[in-house]
């Protein structure tokens, strides 16, 4: 469905120095610099997959999405999306895809959203019957019936984002690229969008590739994740495997019955939190069982659990590039 091989994208940027003298200097002697946004990444995605694309800011996530949707030309490499090369922007290709961006809007600002929908119907040449069904489905799922006739500029960000989603999906794309779809939304609105994405993926067997900084998005939505950092892929696989390969520690929680000398606990593992009667320790993965038995033998332990590190902590490490 989507094939990417050795994709490279370089940007040329002019360096701007700060301060008045610096500004004048760069005006007279502009200094060009090549920024390597993507350093030869490769991956494939099959039909119907819902893949999360994660990495720190500036890692190259959005650049990849923009190349896959045909907006940017790559510097080199091979890309095929369905049977098309994206940047040729063939109308048949464009009818099959959609790019949803949390911070870009296509709705006409001064007019009600229904006008933009009508325009998209004409542009994508959606048959009347399909359009009606499609609109009805989306409007119901996202619960926006009352918002259709209100000028877009009077809507809140969350309301607008839902309507943006409809505008992007009216033509029932087979492949949807989503760039930070929940950015700036409150928790309820985020959940609405997330539920919708899962539902859309199931109903239409659509292939969805989404980037997000929101850990809940990734945990709740995707099975497979691709981690990108500094223009290269550092992990591609199951979310559970990602946890394994990045989780070097386990969390042990003990409940004690009597006061103890906490200093002795340090010998067993790193004390993360003390909240009598609960104490949280972090220990190396391999030594977890040993540490647990040590605790049971030497301390007045009432109860004990061994847990994985929370996924948020792991992904945070991934974002930081810690391995």
């Amino acid at each position, binding site marked *: 469905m989507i094939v990417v091989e050795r994709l490279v994208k370089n940007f040329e940027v002019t360096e701007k120095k700060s301060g008045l003298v610096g500004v004048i200097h760069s005006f007279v002697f502009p200094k060009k610099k090549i920024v390597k946004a993507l350093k030869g990444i490769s991956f494939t995605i099959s039909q119907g997959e819902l893949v999360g694309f994660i990495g720190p800011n500036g890692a190259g996530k959005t650049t990849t999405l923009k190349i896959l949707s045909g907006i940017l*030309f790559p510097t080199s490499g091979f890309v095929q999306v369905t049977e098309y090369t994206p940047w040729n922007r063939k109308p048949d290709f*464009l009818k099959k895809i959609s790019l949803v961006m949390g911070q870009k809007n296509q709705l*006409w600002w*001064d*007019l009600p959203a229904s006008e933009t929908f009508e325009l998209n119907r004409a*542009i*994508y*040449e959606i048959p009347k019957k399909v359009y009606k069904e499609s609109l009805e489905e989306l409007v119901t799922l996202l619960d926006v019936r009352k918002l259709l006739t209100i000028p877009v500029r009077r809507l809140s960000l969350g309301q607008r984002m839902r309507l943006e989603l409809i505008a992007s999906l009216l033509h029932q794309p087979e492949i949807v690229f989503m760039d930070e779809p929940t950015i700036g939304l409150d928790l309820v609105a985020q959940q609405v969008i997330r539920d919708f994405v899962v539902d859309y993926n199931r109903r239409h067997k659509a292939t969805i590739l989404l980037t997000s900084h929101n850990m809940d998005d990734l945990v709740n939505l995707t099975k497979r994740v691709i981690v990108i950092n500094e223009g290269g892929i550092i992990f591609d696989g199951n979310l559970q495997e990602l946890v394994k390969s990045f989780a070097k520690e386990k969390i042990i929680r003990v409940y004690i019955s009597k006061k103890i000398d906490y200093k002795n606990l340090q010998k067993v593992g790193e004390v993360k939190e003390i909240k009598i009667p609960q104490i949280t320790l972090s220990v190396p993965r391999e030594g977890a069982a040993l540490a647990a038995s040590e605790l049971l033998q030497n301390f007045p332990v009432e109860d004990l659990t061994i847990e994985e590190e929370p996924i948020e902590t792991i992904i945070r490490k991934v974002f930081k590039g810690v391995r």
Partner: protein
Amino acid sequence: MKRYFTIFKISLQQEFVYRLNFIMWRVRNVIQIFLIFFLWDSIFSAPNRVLFGYDRAKILTYVLGILVIKAIVFSSRTVDVSGEISSGALTNYLLKPVNYFYYWLTRDLSSKLLNLGFAVIEFGILFIILKPSFFLQTDFLVLLAFFISLAIAIFLFFLILFITSFIPFWAPELAWGAQFIVIVIISEFLSGALFLLDILPKAFHEALYLTPFPYLLFFPLEIYLGKIAGLRIVRGIIISLLWSLVLWILMKSIWFRGLKVYRAEGR
């Protein structure tokens, strides 16, 4: 074709959104028409005065004609294109199976239709109130040539504006400055919007006719006024058509180069 009709409709709706703004804009136009009328009417108050081959009726037709043709040719939504390129809003269009030029040409035409409609009403008011002596062209062939030259003028201006709008692909901060120079200074100055091009020295005048600019305003109006005829009309139409072709090819090639360096910025 149907999609462009829908674009036409929604574009027209957009024009009416800001009611007060719209009314103010039309009021300004009416005032402008009256001012220009009184100015030239008093200059030519002496009967039988002829300047540069224009008598009273023709000069009034000229200055008012310039207003109408300018309203048709220069009124344009396409001025937004450079902003869309530098802000990255262009991305929205690149994602859709729609031709960006035809999209804007359609939006332009809807804007022009609106302008023309109101210009007709406003001039109607002028005629009813002032009953000016006005030169009415009745020769069918001349009128035909006039409308052809007007269509070419619209297209030429669209191309010039579009090409100028591509500058932000390479220099995002230049969006407005370049447009100002090309549109306000060059196009208005050299198209006859500010003064009669006949005033210029003959050689300069002739040379100007090899550029696309006089074909934006002055040439159609000259045809209407019957100042030029026959071969000169044909020659002018051929030159302006050639320019259309050259600018079209130029625009296409710059567009594709621009897309290669386009960064889809704005986030």
